């Protein structure tokens, strides 16, 4: 008798879970999809997007050991330079708001970021040093110059870095 009851409980629980799980698929529940805001500077990233998406951590890991232990301060895979390009225009940061560049993907993938306990999330000082910026540093100037509608004072202030 006990065994039948136990078996029955197992079957019912499994069925309930399956029913609950099945229903969830079509609904768009769960984490908000990541917002990949385009970087305001530069035409492309230092590596192709699909490679970056999967391997950015490897680049960062290798570079950080070289930078800290050996003092090699190349800019290509430098976290600071990533931040310089990818900082959100709204928050000025890569990890302040939920849809900022690093946080949006990482919260979707549920992978905790350890970087920003120590690293600043905001660019500071001259952002013109990145090689990619040399051609496109005034991209926004060009945008503003070609605008057909009026450019507001705040936009111009934001452009004049």
């Amino acid at each position, binding site marked *: 008798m006990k065994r039948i009851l136990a078996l029955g409980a197992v079957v019912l629980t499994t069925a309930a879970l399956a029913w609950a799980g099945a229903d969830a698929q079509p609904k768009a529940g769960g984490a908000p999809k990541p917002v990949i805001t385009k970087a305001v500077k530069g035409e492309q990233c230092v590596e192709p997007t699909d490679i970056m998406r999967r391997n950015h951590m490897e680049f960062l890991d290798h570079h*950080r*050991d*070289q930078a*800290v*232990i*050996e*003092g*090699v*301060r*190349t*800019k290509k895979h430098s976290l*600071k330079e990533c*931040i310089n390009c990818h900082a959100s225009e709204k928050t000025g*940061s890569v*990890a*302040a708001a939920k849809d900022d560049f690093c946080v949006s993907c990482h919260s979707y993938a549920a992978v905790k970021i350890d970087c*920003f*306990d*120590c*690293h*600043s*999330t*905001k*660019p*500071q*000082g*001259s952002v*013109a*040093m990145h090689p990619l910026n*040399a051609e496109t*540093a*005034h991209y926004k*100037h060009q945008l503003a110059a070609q605008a057909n509608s009026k450019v507001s004072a705040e936009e111009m202030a934001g452009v004049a870095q």
Partner: protein
Amino acid sequence: MSELKSMSDNTPNSPERRRFIGAAAATAAGLTIAPGVILVEVAHGRSEEQGASSAVRWGMLVDATKCATGCNDCVTACSTENGWTPVAESKHAKQAPQWIRKLELQDPLTQIETNLPMMCQHCAEPPCVDVCPTGASFKRADGIVLVNRHTCIGCRYCMMACPYKARSLVHESLNDTQKADVPRGIGCVESCTLCVQKVDRGDGNTACAEACTAAGHNALLFGDMNDPESEISKRLRELPTKQVRADLNLNLGVRYHGI
């Protein structure tokens, strides 16, 4: 392109004007970048692919006879450059990091007072490096003793081991107030880095030494102790200097005159 040819020089969208604006913009961009390039050359800084080299040994000479009583310029400069809160402004003074501090010494027999800044001595044989379980506390090839915060587990053994009380633990979250050039974070240990971020980009000097010189005291001199022609090497040959706790035989990177 006939439309272009028909435009005169005075119209806003003329090619000549565009070229002028383009040239002006390029000059402006060049002028922005140029100072960095020039500084790199003047301070014979390394290129960014080059790592730190043991051909160089960074060190500091402190002239305690020139250190002014009550002056905290070096401490202020360090806290500004590296982004730590000066202890006077800290809510938890006993837990506040202090990368550099002014020591006031008094001889009980003669009442003679001496002032000097005390910071990480960048030992050639650092006890903190010996005891660190993960190797996070390490000595770079050019003699700067650093904490690799990627590997620091916050065990504070280096703080126990340091004979100069140079190290501090970051006791609370810094809430994104760090300088972009100076990452530092909760739970990790830190100390004077000889402004490694400035050294690596070729500034050739530390914030504290710059501030002391700017204030006119000239008590701090930073430089390459391996270069016999450097300012610091020449001064070290002129002035008698001592190492703090010299009996420990740690071969310090910071030498003091006047103690």
